């Protein structure tokens, strides 16, 4: 199946000479949720803006639904909904008017039924006649999403949708995203919250300093990069790691009550069986055993550090 969004060697050099994108290539499959994870200034917004037509690429190409975003911009842009990072709204307009306007701008004939469904799904229906300036920050962000969904896009770009948003609204937003995915919409979201990528994405791309460092299935990424830790709780604290276990690189934690063994889940042999056998031989008595997986956060920090 051809990719719904195909980005080829995209470069962007701003007027001041700063190179914000250094040759990004990425294929996005229809119906997936992809999270672009990267620190501030990584080039996430630049990437989205270039795909959506707000900034002009220096070189490279992008197609959306097979349509080139420069030469066939009408067909390409018709498929795209964009929720910008900044809350850009006209303060004196009502919610309903501004959402209707967005639909018209994308060339779709008026359909108040559709707009009603969108506003209801975002809990904005009661506020439809309110002026935007009277809404809270979270509500304004919902209005931005409603605008982006007003013309029934097949690809939705969400640029840091939950930045500065309270926990409850974040959960709501994730529900909305899940609902959109269920209806077949492809979603590209940027975030610097790892938990967000971890919670809702199918694939994760890590971007840093204008380069896409990797793109991988979330699960595969976590296993590939993921290390697990085996926490061995002892019934009696021990002063030092027994000499017989020295080659396992164990660390002693919690005043000698816990031995921690770090291993790679992707390896064929994790060494756990042998460790436990050797451990029994030392005479130490175990009270509990647990394993912990590295969070995406640790993976991410590791990657970006490596790059620096």
């Amino acid at each position, binding site marked *: 199946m051809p990719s719904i969004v195909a980005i080829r060697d995209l470069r962007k050099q701003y007027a001041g000479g700063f190179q914000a994108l250094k040759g990004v290539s990425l294929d996005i499959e229809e119906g997936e949720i992809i999270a672009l994870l990267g620190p501030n200034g990584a080039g996430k917004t630049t990437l989205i803006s270039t795909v959506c037509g707000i900034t002009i690429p220096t070189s490279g190409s992008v197609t959306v639904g097979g349509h080139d975003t420069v030469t066939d911009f009408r067909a390409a*842009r*018709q498929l795209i909904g964009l929720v910008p990072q900044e809350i*850009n709204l006209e303060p*004196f307009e009502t919610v309903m008017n501004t959402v209707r306007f967005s639909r018209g*701008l994308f*060339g779709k004939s008026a359909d108040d039924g559709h707009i009603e469904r969108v506003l209801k799904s975002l809990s904005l229906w009661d506020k439809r006649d309110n002026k935007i300036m009277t809404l809270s920050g979270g509500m304004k962000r919902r209005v931005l999403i409603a605008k982006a969904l007003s013309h029934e896009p097949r690809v939705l770009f969400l640029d840091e949708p939950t930045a500065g948003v309270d926990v409850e609204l974040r959960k709501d937003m994730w529900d909305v995203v899940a609902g959109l995915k269920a209806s077949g919409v492809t979603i590209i979201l940027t975030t610097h919250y790892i938990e967000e990528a971890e919670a809702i994405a199918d694939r994760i791309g890590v971007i840093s300093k204008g380069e896409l460092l990797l793109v991988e299935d979330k699960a595969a990424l976590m296993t590939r990069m993921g290390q697990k830790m085996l926490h061995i709780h002892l019934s009696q604290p021990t002063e030092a790691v027994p000499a017989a276990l020295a080659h396992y690189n164990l660390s002693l934690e919690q005043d000698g009550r816990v031995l921690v063994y770090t291993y790679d889940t992707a390896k064929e042999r994790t060494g756990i069986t042998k460790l436990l056998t050797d451990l029994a031989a030392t005479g130490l008595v175990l009270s509990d055993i647990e394993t912990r997986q590295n969070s995406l956060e640790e993976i991410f920090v590791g990657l970006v550090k490596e790059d620096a």
Partner: protein
Amino acid sequence: MNLVAVRSIYRFEMARFFRTITQSLVSPVLSTSLYFVVFGTAIGSRINEVEGVSYGAFIVPGLIMLSVMTQATTNASFGIYFPKFTGTIYELLSAPVNFLEITLGYVGAAATKALFIGTIILITAFFFVDLTIAHPFAMIAFLILTCVSFALLGFIIGIWAGNFEQLQLIPLLVITPLVFLGGSFYSVSMLPPVWQTITMFNPVVYLISGFRWAFFGQADVPIGLSLLAIAFFTAACVTAIWWIFRTGWRIRQ
């Protein structure tokens, strides 16, 4: 052609106008009435006639032009500057619309507003002076052309402006003086010969002269020249806007 988009922009802009209709109309009507009282009645009573027309009637075309040009310019410049200011321009730039459609929407709305105000002033004028219009269709055509061309100019100013001060700078420093010196309140033939020549470099002279011809059947410059001037001005603005959108000047990075 994305006509739905053009209509959406147009409606959105017109809705803004009608929301503040009283403000939009009171100020131009009031100031024009003041001009009629001061120039038409007070001073006009001491000036017999200009080119066979009573002075009160003579200044009507110039006054309408003054309002229409200022209104078309400020409305269009504000219309496109505001999305830049609030950031909602992202939507215009990412929508499936080209420069022609964006321009048609914004300039169309600004020109309509100016036309509306021009018409109201014309109606107001009938309360103050005896007025007959020699060439009504030419008058309407001239009025519409002026509204459109100055809205185009305003659109360019709105894209160029980086803040609200700059937005008001051009109308204040360029358009108002050009209109005042463009024969709104006098006939060019009343000037000393040197000034008559200098005045011919003021493009507004051609517009006011043509408009006055439509009212009274006489003009400072031949009507063909007036039409040529306004056509040239419109074409120059359209070319500038086409270039702006092609290069992304001041709007696309």
